């Protein structure tokens, strides 16, 4: 029976790997202090859920649409924050997360607001339903591997090196005649696209979404994964996802009085994270500082 629990954890890890690696593309490799990633995740989840549930759109179409729609939001965000950098960009993108959260909460005719969307169907491809958790895990694993492969290829390509150059010396790159905004916009769109894909997987796996799943606290989880793994470290994001998701699960097996169980686990979890960052300030595999 332990397999069911492990399968569930692996599915969550798969979804969070996509989220973390895609955030690292914008945050780590491009140097965009993007705090709007959770909004892309939410947009993807809602797009996919609404398309399949309300309009009866087949899952593959909804799945791709989730990514494209999130990518569109990424484009809008980078366009709106074109002239911002560093802390200002972080604040603006954080504001964007709040705007999307407010939309999900208040546009009740579309999103059902705080009631959320229950009963989201499991995915199916051309009549082949992915109903069991094992088949869902295989599906998530495929999507995760493909997503990671694409992002890895981007990072290692000449385009990826340009992204890193724009992070390290934007003025220098501009002097060389490169359009750095175009580079950043592409990185943000790709990053948002994969966050949207992860959102679609999340919605169809949990089968219920409401705005509370896409709030600032959930952004902190993804940021923690990226920072603990190391900024601009592809491997770090993947390893860190396993660690950050599995630590609280490991803590479940420490016997504690039920009256202190919840808070005590959270405190231990926080201490472990602090320990990691104190021992390795740049994260587990970090190469650059977050400025």
């Amino acid at each position: 029976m332990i397999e069911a629990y492990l399968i569930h954890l692996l599915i969550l890890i798969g979804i969070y790997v996509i989220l973390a690696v895609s955030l690292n593309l914008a945050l780590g490799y491009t140097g965009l202090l993007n705090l709007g990633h959770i909004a892309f995740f939410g947009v993807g989840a809602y797009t996919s859920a609404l398309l399949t549930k309300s309009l009866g759109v087949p899952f593959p179409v909804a799945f791709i649409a989730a990514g494209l729609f999130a990518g569109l939001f990424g484009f809008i965000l980078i366009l709106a924050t074109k002239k911002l950098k560093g802390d200002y960009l972080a604040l603006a993108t954080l504001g964007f997360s709040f705007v999307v959260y407010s939309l999900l909460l208040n546009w009740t005719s579309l999103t059902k607001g705080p009631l959320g969307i229950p009963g989201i169907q499991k995915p199916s491809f051309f009549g082949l339903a992915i109903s069991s958790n094992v088949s869902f895990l295989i599906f998530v694993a495929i999507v995760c591997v493909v997503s990671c492969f694409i992002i890895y290829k981007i990072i290692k390509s000449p385009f990826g090196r340009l992204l890193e150059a724009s992070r390290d010396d934007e003025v220098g790159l501009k002097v060389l005649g490169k359009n750095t905004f175009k580079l950043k916009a592409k990185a943000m769109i790709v990053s948002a696209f994969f966050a949207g894909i992860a959102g679609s997987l999340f919605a169809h796996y949990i089968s219920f979404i409401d705005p509370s799943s896409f709030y600032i606290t959930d952004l902190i989880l993804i940021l923690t994964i990226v920072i603990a793994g190391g900024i601009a470290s592809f491997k770090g994001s993947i390893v860190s996802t396993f660690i950050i998701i599995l630590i609280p699960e490991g803590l479940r097996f420490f016997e504690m009085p039920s009256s202190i169980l919840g808070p005590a686990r959270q405190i231990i979890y926080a201490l472990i994270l602090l320990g990691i960052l104190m021992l390795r300030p740049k994260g587990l595999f970090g190469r650059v500082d977050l400025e």
Partner: protein
Amino acid sequence: MKNTKMAIVVGMALVIFLAGCNAANQGKIKVGAILPLTGSSSIWGENEQKGISLALEDLKAQGIENVEVITEDSQSKDAPAVTAAQKLISLDDVDLIYTSLTGPSIAVAPVANSSGKLHLYKAATQVPINNFPENSLKTGYYNYEIDCSVFGELLAKNNYKKIAYVAAKKDFSTECKRGIANSAPSVAIDEYSYEVSNEDFMSILTKIRESEYDAIVITGYNADFLKFYSKMSQLKINTTVLCAGSEDCLSENPDLMPLGMVYFGAYIDNNFKEKLLAKYANMSILEQSIAATSYDMVRFVSEAYSVCPSRQRECLKKAIQDSKLDTAIDSEGFQGGSFLKLKVRLFEVNETKGVIELK
């Protein structure tokens, strides 16, 4: 050789330990309780814990030790609640799942259903029931659609024509509004929604004062209600307030509550209250009411297990539905239905600033 001996000793110890575990758990039904022990709704989880401990102690005092409750934290969120459910079902092999709060209950419902475990829950809405009617039982808490219809009846009886509906952006607000609209179709409802913990009510109340409503219905949580009352008094608004927040509507300082404020609630058994307060001092009425529902849940399960030693889902469900248990929170039992029908009454803050039942 030394290593082999060591391995044998460890192996034997493990076998004895596991056998001991099984022996200890024999004759017990396991409940996996997924409670919001941390996060925005931790007040619920903390007090539900107290109710569960008291119920287990009470049963033990009666010589009944047939329930084991394994608690996990939902962090007041949906996805962690699903993870907790998977762990409880897969590793702890629980016989039933109990969840608290609407979101986690809806998220856990399909997991419980697919694993064939009866799902007991506590939420303000009926959504999990609609999705999995054969597998879900609501063992406590108010039903906002039904309970707010009592407000609707009161509004209709008093010939109120127009009300302001100050709604927290939460699932239960939608259900409460539906309950009022259904029971008082002639009453015009102007809605003013607000975000929980993030509203000072000044602009909402200014608009309300200009529009001269017959009554104000408000939904939300204690901190919001207290802020609302305070701003009402500041703006000298005397419109009747109907508070759809049960015991959460109350303030420890009666002077802070608007005169004539009406809320719905259910009585808590005095015997239970005494035992609870003897063990945990200084619990508010709201906290007592939260503890009462989980206390009842454990007793429902204990009783059902004595009827269904096979732990079969359908049998357990039927036993709970048919139970005549004298609940700590005043109720009429399940009456064969899918939720515990609380005996909801209307209470009013009267001139002497006391709370009296509105007949």
